[in-house]
């Protein structure tokens, strides 16, 4: 029954787009989610390459900071002070305003035990919430979707906007929607073939289970790809409709991050069933000549995030959205000979949104008692994830994270 309905919807194309989203009405009506909070959404922004936390939340009053940093130092007089120890990077102006309004939580010293200084290994840990990384299975957002939202939505409720989807959204059973641009997000075939193209995704083999073991690998791969094709067709109509219709008085910066957050805002406001969004900002791997590049990146982040939060504040759906900004690691306390910094360990995480209790969380790591020259972590990143999964979404954090982590009291 559901299949037929959806086929009609697809044939109807854009005229119906966005109205039903990924959510099947029957599952919603059943109301099987006692704890789950259906209106809530989350956006995860990844600062790829290892953000230099000491240049983002600057311990300007710490003598050890001045001693370790010369070429990469953010001057104390330019810092946007939060208290008499730390302040935000001078380009994080809009985030500073958010701080004053009580909408910015800064979690300090975030990391995990035995952190390797490898981008890939560290990203794997952040993406899976598990020390084993990818070998442990799906990404944590994929698991969140499967465990909390799968009964209410037939396909993934996770959308990545940007070039390559991070492993966090990875799920074998429910592949995330991933797109770089909504306008190009469709198959451009002739009308008659487009009908066949849509049908081809509709799991032909459910009717006729593959019998030959001679092609077991092929058949398993085709099954997965057909599911993906189905999701592609469905989400294409919905997402393009949502973005084309979106009207906001808020101006976004003309950067890829700005455009991506604009489109995410459009999807949040369209009534689409997506619950979790992901996007990235790259180029944080500042081994050499860090200062200018990092200053620029802070500005790109601040302008885009500022607009996004302003846009979200307008509506109930927006206010029901929490934003997390993380990076795979902070950087070495002592700068290197190339006016840059090498891979380090702990760093700050930002949590933003109308539902967020602003302020400082965790504990600022010592700049003198170091872990192999790096900031030692004081706060496990999974205590941030746990707050989002458990307190924000009302889902079972231990299932998603594969262990018990006390959530920080980030949400009001």
């Amino acid at each position, binding site marked *: 029954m559901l299949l037929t309905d959806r086929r009609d919807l697809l044939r109807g194309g*854009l005229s119906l787009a966005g109205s039903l989203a990924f959510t099947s009405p029957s599952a919603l009506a059943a109301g099987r989610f006692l704890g789950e909070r259906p209106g809530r959404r989350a956006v995860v922004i990844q600062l790829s390459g290892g953000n230099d936390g000491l240049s983002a939340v600057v311990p300007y009053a710490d003598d050890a900071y001045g001693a370790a940093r010369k070429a990469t130092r953010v001057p104390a007089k330019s810092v946007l002070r939060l208290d008499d120890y730390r302040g935000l990077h001078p380009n994080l102006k809009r985030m500073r305003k958010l701080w004053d309004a009580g909408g910015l939580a800064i979690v300090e010293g975030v990391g995990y035990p035995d952190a390797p*200084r*490898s*981008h*890939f*290994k560290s990203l794997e840990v952040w993406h899976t919430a598990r020390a084993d990384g990818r070998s442990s299975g799906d990404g944590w957002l994929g698991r969140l979707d499967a465990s909390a939202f799968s009964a209410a939505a037939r396909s993934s409720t996770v959308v990545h906007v940007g*070039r*390559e*989807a991070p492993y966090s959204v990875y799920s074998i059973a429910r592949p*995330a*929607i991933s*797109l*770089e*641009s*909504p*306008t*190009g997000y469709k*198959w*451009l*075939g*002739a009308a*008659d*073939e487009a009908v*066949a193209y849509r049908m*081809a995704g509709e799991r*032909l*083999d459910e009717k*006729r289970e593959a019998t030959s*073991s001679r*092609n*077991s*690998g*092929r058949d*398993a*791969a*085709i099954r*997965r*790809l*057909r599911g*993906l*094709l189905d999701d*592609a067709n469905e*989400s*294409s109509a919905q997402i*393009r409709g949502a973005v*084309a*219709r979106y009207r906001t008085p808020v101006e976004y910066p003309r*950067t*890829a*991050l700005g*455009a991506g957050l604009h489109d995410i805002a459009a999807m949040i406001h369209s009534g689409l069933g997506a619950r979790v969004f992901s996007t990235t*900002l790259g*180029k944080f791997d500042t*081994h*050499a000549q860090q200062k200018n590049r990092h200053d*620029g*990146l802070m500005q*790109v982040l601040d302008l885009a995030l500022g607009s996004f939060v302003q846009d979200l504040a307008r509506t109930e759906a927006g206010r029901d959205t929490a934003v997390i900004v993380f990076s795979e690691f902070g950087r070495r306390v002592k700068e*290197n000979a*190339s006016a840059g910094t090498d891979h380090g360990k702990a760093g700050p995480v930002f949590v933003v949104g109308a539902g967020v209790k602003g302020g400082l969380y965790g504990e600022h790591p010592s700049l003198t008692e170091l872990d192999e020259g790096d900031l030692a972590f004081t706060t496990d990143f999974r205590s941030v994830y746990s707050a989002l999964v458990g307190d924000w979404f009302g889902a079972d954090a231990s299932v998603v994270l594969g262990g018990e982590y006390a959530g920080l009291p980030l949400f009001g």
Partner: protein
Amino acid sequence: MTEIQVALLSSLALMFPASAQEPAETEAKLEWDARAAEHLFNRAGFGARPAEIRRWVEAGPEALVEHLLAPRGSEPFYVEDPEGDVERLREMRKVSGDERRRLRQLARQKDRRQYQAFLEWWVERLITADDPLRERMTLFWHGLLTSSFQTVKRSRWMIDQNQLFRDNATGSYATLLKAILKDPAMLRYLDNNTNKKGKPNENLAREVMELFSLGEGHYTESDVKEAARALTGHSFQPGGTYRFFARRHDYGPKDILGARGRHDASDLADILLAQEQCARYIAGRLIHYFEGVEPEAQRLERYAALLRDGGYELEPLLRTLFLDPDFYREDIIGARVASPIDFLVGSMRRLGTRIRPQFVVLGAAMLGERLGDPPNVKGWEGGEAWISTSTLMMRGNLVGMVLGEVETEDLDDRAELELLAVDVPDDPASDATDEAMMQGEPMMSDTEQMVPESPRSAEQRKNSELTRLLRGLDRAGYRPRVHFAFRIGKLRLRTDEEVVDYLLDELLAIEPPAETRAMLVAHFAREREDAGLGRKLPRGSGERLLRRVAHLILSLPEAQLH
């Protein structure tokens, strides 16, 4: 069969493992047929057409493997060094700052153009596939011993590195490892030019162990620190050749993986090659690359031993692998998602059409495989990670352009937006941006994008990339060189089943499931009748129908596998 009978049979099989019905695994024989030959072409090369496959089915697997391994001695890309030339100019010291900047800018432009030309040369080699295994292995090394043009920014270094991979593609891993530690592109990519005594930069040391030789978990943090010291002073001259700077080198004793001594870069390579894990890691990466799944432990050990005992020569390993019945297992054949390059190059080869190589370079980049620019030092993730909802549709769109089935007006969202009563913006992307892309400018990063663009252009870039690709094809007067109606007429194919079978055989790298064939036969028959066409397909409307169906076939999940 009843449960008792099944139980009886399986106990019989246990008692008589080598019986005719249940041949023991050790006696597994390579079943050489068209499916196996196509599999070898797909994985060791870049696909083949049915006629080529039929020839090699007759010749046998050994002959095909030797054919693939045989050296061809083909001509390398002729490379210049515009940026190096301008740096070496004596006059540079005399001219004014403005003039110097102008000269450098010109050299940079010339350099980027050379890199574009090189990428097109590379892709052309993939499409013509005169030396398919060498090209396959070159791509493998590019994804393993990664460097990126975006970071290196000197075309000559990247091209030289590529030639290093091509020259040693099936040669010795030991040679490659030693050479890569003195390769300017690599030294630049992983910042070893800033690795100096007293102020080590660990980037290269870490990646050499983690990704190039041993794998995570087979060395300690201390090994990385010590290896970084061994690599101090290994850098390059401003002109671009490798140079050892003795004064930057740390001559003190180092402890690397239990070996103590005053090690330098080649000592480090020797220490790594002496590790038992090294051969295991490289054999594992190779098998995974060709098969798409991790090898089973015992089998991996056999291959690791083969590599180790053969002094890291690759040819014996490849020969054994390609004749190994396990390479043709049911869970491997046709089960891997083709990379964007495999998909586009393979489609081009199977269609038997020619297109500007630049189309493949840009198309593959849009699908996530930017040749010369792997996403990070780990290379491309590969496998199912190649496919998202977005790139699945994009693959179909690109091949639709090749077939002339996707045209500029299809890309125009105006009609659709008007339907939705939306204000239509004037022009999604300025011509300036377009031109910059045409010149092969690397994608702008966020930091560089502070210059104003039209508000939605960043988001619409992918769409405008498609537009640009189409404009490029239009300007070059591209017409698809396929004539399906003729090919089908010549073979006297009459029934809908015959026509669809022909297209599937020609266009897919795998055997499609029966249900896919049935769906397509029904679709083709319906479309043919709707268009009022008989069994004999005419040149105009018949050809259009065939191309539309070919476009559909190449957009299906079945066409993404190989």
